[in-house]
C-alpha cells in the first residue's frame, strides 16, 4: 500500500485502534486535515482552543485507560497545547500529541507560526520526536504510542514538518505491530525477595496502613488492591489521584489523606508503624513537612518508576514494579505464608481509628440559609446514585468533590492533581462523555475555573456531549481566598470576581440549558431536573456560601497530626473530652 505522510498518519491511527482525535487545524497540518476529511473511522473533534483538545484527550484517557490523541498545528497550536501536556505529564496520563511543524527546510528560519515544539515541550513530556524522514513516520508513531502507554505512562509529542505530510509523495506503508527500543525497557515485575520482605513486614505490623495512589488506576490494579487489602483487613487511605481504586464506601477505607484529607487518615499516617505505599509518590500535598512524616513507620514503597522510590521519603523496602504484578505476587505470598495478622493489635488499631472518625472532620453547617458547597456535592451524589463520572477543575470545589463524592470504581474521578490546572474540568468531561455516551458525566467546577476553558461549551453542542456543569459559585477564587483568610489576615487580594457573567444566559447563548439555584431547598429539584434532561448540556449555577472553607487542612511546615480542623470538629472534640471519650 503506497500512502502519503498524511495518509500514513490517518491509517496508522486506524490500525492503532484510535477512535477519537481531538484537534484544531492550521497551516502546518492542512495536508493531514485533508486526509482526515476523506474517511470516517477516526472521529475528529474540533475543539475551540488547543488546551481544550489536550484536556479532552486527557479526560478520555483517564476514563478509558486508552491513550488520548490530539492533533494541533505548529507555533501557537503547539504552545496552546503545552498546559494540557504538562497536566497529563504530572498525572502520568498516556497522551499522544501530534503537532504540525513548518516545512523541514524552513525550520530554524523563524518562519510563520514556527516554534521549536520539541524544545518547548521537552520538560513536560515523557518523550518527544521530530520526524525528519517520511520513511520513519509510521515507526515513530508506533514508538510514541508504545512509550506513552507503557511503564509509567505519560504524554508523547510527535512534531511533524509539513513536507513530511505532502500529498504527492507516497511510500509503502505497513502497520508496525511491534516495536523494539534498546533504550526503553520498563520494568513491571517486582523483585520476589523484596515482595516476600514486604509481606513479612506488613504481617509484623501493629498499626499498619496502606496508602495507594493513581498508579493503581493507571496500572489497572484495582481488583488486586481490593483483594489484598481485604485479606489483610488493614485500613487504607488513598490520594486524590487514587480515589475509586478501593471503594470509597467500604469501611476499610478511612478517607483521602494529605492536605485536605480526613482527620482519621492523616492521624493514622502519623501513628502507623508500617506503611505500604503503592502507586503513589509522596507528593508534598500528601506528606506535609518531610521531617515530621510518619515518624514511627517502616516504609514499603512499590512504584513502576524507580526514580519515584526514595525520592522524598526513604523506602525501607523498595519494590520497582507495576502495581498489578506486584500485588498479584503479594497475594500469592500472603496465601502461602504461615505468619498471621496480629488480630489483637489490629483490633486496637481500628478502635483508635474509630475514635478519630467519631470527631467527624468533614462536618459542616447543615442548617444554614446559604447553600453549602459540601451539600451541593452530596446532592449530586444522591441524584446520580454515586455512579457518575465526575471531572473537576482546581480549587475548593475540587476538594469538596473529593471529600463528599465517594467513588466505588476506578476511573470515575477525573481531575488535575499534580499540576492543578484550572480549566481542566469541562473539556475533560467532554472527552469522558464521548467515550461513555450513556453514562452521567458531571463537571464540578467554580466560577473561576470554568471561565478558563468555557469556550468548549461550543464544542459540547457541536458533538452532542450532554455533560452537567455543577458550578459552585461563591463569587471568590475560593481556595486563594481561604489561604488569604488563614495566612494573610483576611487581606483578600484579587480574589473577588465582581463582574461575573450571567451563567444562565451564557449557557443559553451557547445553545444549552442554564439553571441557577441559591436556596438550599431548591437544590434537589434543580439537580434532578438537570439530570432528567439526558440529551442536553446543563449549566447548573449554584450560588453557595461565600466563605465556606475546606477542612481539615495541613498548612505549610506542619505534620499530619497538626491539622487545622473546622470549628465544628473543635466543638465535637471539646464535647468528647467532656464526656471522657477523648484523651
Amino acid at each position, binding site marked *: 500500500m503506497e500512502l502519503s505522510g498524511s495518509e500514513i498518519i490517518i491509517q496508522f491511527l486506524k490500525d492503532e485502534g484510535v477512535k477519537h482525535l481531538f484537534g484544531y487545524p492550521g497551516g502546518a497540518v492542512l495536508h493531514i486535515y485533508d486526509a482526515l476529511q476523506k474517511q470516517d473511522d477516526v472521529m475528529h473533534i474540533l475543539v475551540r482552543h488547543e488546551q481544550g483538545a489536550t484536556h479532552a484527550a486527557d479526560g478520555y484517557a483517564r476514563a478509558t485507560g486508552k491513550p488520548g490523541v490530539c492533533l494541533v498545528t505548529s507555533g501557537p497550536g503547539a504552545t496552546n497545547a503545552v498546559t494540557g501536556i504538562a497536566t497529563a505529564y504530572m498525572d502520568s496520563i498516556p497522551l499522544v500529541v501530534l503537532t504540525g511543524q513548518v516545512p523541514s527546510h524552513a525550520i530554524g528560519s523563524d518562519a510563520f507560526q514556527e516554534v521549536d515544539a*520539541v*524544545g518547548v515541550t*521537552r*520538560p513536560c513530556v*515523557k*518523550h*518527544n520526536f*521530530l520526524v525528519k524522514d517520511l520513511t520513519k513516520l509510521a515507526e515513530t508513531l508506533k514508538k510514541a504510542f508504545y*512509550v506513552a502507554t507503557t511503564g509509567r505512562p505519560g504524554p508523547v509529542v510527535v512534531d511533524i514538518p509539513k513536507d513530511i505530510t505532502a500529498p504527492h509523495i507516497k511510500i509503502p506503508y505497513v502497520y508496525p505491530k511491534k516495536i523494539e*527500543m*534498546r*533504550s*526503553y525497557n520498563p520494568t513491571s515485575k517486582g523483585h520476589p525477595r523484596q515482595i516476600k520482605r514486604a509481606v513479612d513486614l506488613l504481617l509484623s505490623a501493629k498499626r499498619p496502613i496502606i496508602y495507594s495512589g493513581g498508579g493503581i488506576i493507571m496500572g489497572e490494579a484495582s481488583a488486586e488492591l481490593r483483594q489484598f487489602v481485604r485479606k489483610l483487613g488493614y485500613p487504607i487511605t488513598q490520594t486524590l489521584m487514587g480515589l475509586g481504586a478501593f471503594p470509597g464506601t467500604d469501611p476499610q477505607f478511612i478517607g483521602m489523606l494529605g492536605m485536605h484529607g480526613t482527620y482519621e487518615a492523616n492521624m493514622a499516617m502519623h501513628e502507623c508503624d508500617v506503611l505500604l505505599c503503592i502507586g503513589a509518590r509522596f507528593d508534598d500535598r500528601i506528606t506535609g513537612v518531610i521531617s515530621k512524616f510518619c515518624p514511627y513507620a517502616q516504609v514499603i514503597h512499590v512504584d513502576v*518508576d*524507580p*526514580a519515584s522510590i*526514595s*525520592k522524598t521519603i*526513604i523506602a525501607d523496602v523498595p519494590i520497582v514494579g507495576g502495581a498489578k504484578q506486584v500485588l498479584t505476587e503479594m497475594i500469592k505470598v500472603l496465601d502461602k505464608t504461615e505468619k498471621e495478622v496480629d488480630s489483637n493489635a489490629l483490633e486496637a488499631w481500628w478502635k483508635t481509628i474509630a475514635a478519630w472518625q467519631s470527631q467527624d472532620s468533614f462536618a459542616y453547617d447543615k442548617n444554614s440559609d446559604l447553600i453549602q458547597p459540601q451539600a451541593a456535592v452530596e446532592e449530586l451524589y444522591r441524584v446520580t446514585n454515586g455512579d457518575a463520572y465526575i471531572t473537576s477543575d482546581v480549587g475548593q470545589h475540587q476538594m469538596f468533590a473529593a471529600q463528599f463524592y465517594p467513588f466505588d470504581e476506578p476511573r470515575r474521578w477525573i481531575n488535575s492533581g499534580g499540576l492543578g490546572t484550572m480549566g481542566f474540568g469541562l473539556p475533560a468531561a467532554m472527552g469522558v462523555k464521548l467515550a461513555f455516551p450513556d453514562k452521567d458525566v458531571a463537571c464540578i467546577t467554580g466560577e473561576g475555573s470554568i471561565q478558563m476553558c468555557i469556550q468548549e461549551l461550543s464544542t459540547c453542542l457541536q458533538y452532542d456531549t450532554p455533560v452537567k456543569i455543577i458550578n459552585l459559585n461563591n463569587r471568590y477564587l475560593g481556595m486563594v481566598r481561604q489561604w488569604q483568610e488563614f495566612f494573610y489576615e483576611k487581606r483578600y487580594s484579587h480574589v473577588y470576581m465582581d463582574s461575573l457573567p450571567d451563567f444562565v444566559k451564557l449557557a443559553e447563548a451557547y445553545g444549552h440549558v442554564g439553571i441557577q439555584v441559591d436556596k438550599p431547598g431548591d437544590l434537589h429539584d434543580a439537580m434532578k431536573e438537570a439530570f432528567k434532561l439526558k440529551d442536553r448540556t446543563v449549566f447548573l449555577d449554584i450560588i453557595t456560601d461565600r466563605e465556606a472553607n475546606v477542612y481539615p487542612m495541613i498548612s505549610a511546615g506542619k505534620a499530619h497530626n497538626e491539622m487545622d480542623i473546622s470549628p465544628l470538629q473543635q466543638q465535637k472534640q471539646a464535647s468528647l473530652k467532656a464526656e471522657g471519650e477523648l484523651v
Partner: protein
Amino acid sequence: MRHIVSLLVENESGALSRISGLFSARGYNIESLTVATTEDPTLSRMTIITTGSDRIIEQITKQLNKLVDVVKLQDVTEGNFIEREIMFVKVKAEGESQRAEVHRLSEIFRARIIDVTDTTFCIELTGSGDKLEAYIRAMHENNIIEVVRSGSMAILRGEKALTL
C-alpha cells in the same frame, strides 16, 4: 561527593539537550560534560562530572536512566577508574628566555608543544584536572593567551566496561 557518570545515549539530535535540561530543571550540578560518538555510530558516549549527596546522585542516575534516549549508564566512581582531561594552552613565547622557560615547564608536566610561531607556543597537556590546574598556576598568568579544556573522561580499570 564528586561523581563521574558515564552514559551511552542514542546518537540523536535531542539527546544532549534532554540530558542538560534534566540537570537544570532539577537543580543538579554539572561540573563538566563531554560527548562524542563511539565505535558504533548510533551511540554517543557522555561523561558527566557532578557533585551531590548520595541521595542526589541516586536521583541523578535514576532520572538519567529514565530518559528514553539513555541506553546505559554507569557511575564510574563506584569502581576503580582512570580519569583524564586534555587541555590546549596558547602562551606568549617571545625572546629566548621566555621560550626556554615554557619549554622547561612543559617538560616537567610532560606536555607537548603542538604549534610554534615567532611569538607563541601552543601546548597540549593530558592528565587529571588537578594536574592541568597546576600547569596553569605554574605558567605565568600574564603569558597565557588562551586555555581550552575538554572536560574529563573516564574509564573503568580491568574487564568491566560500559558496553551494550
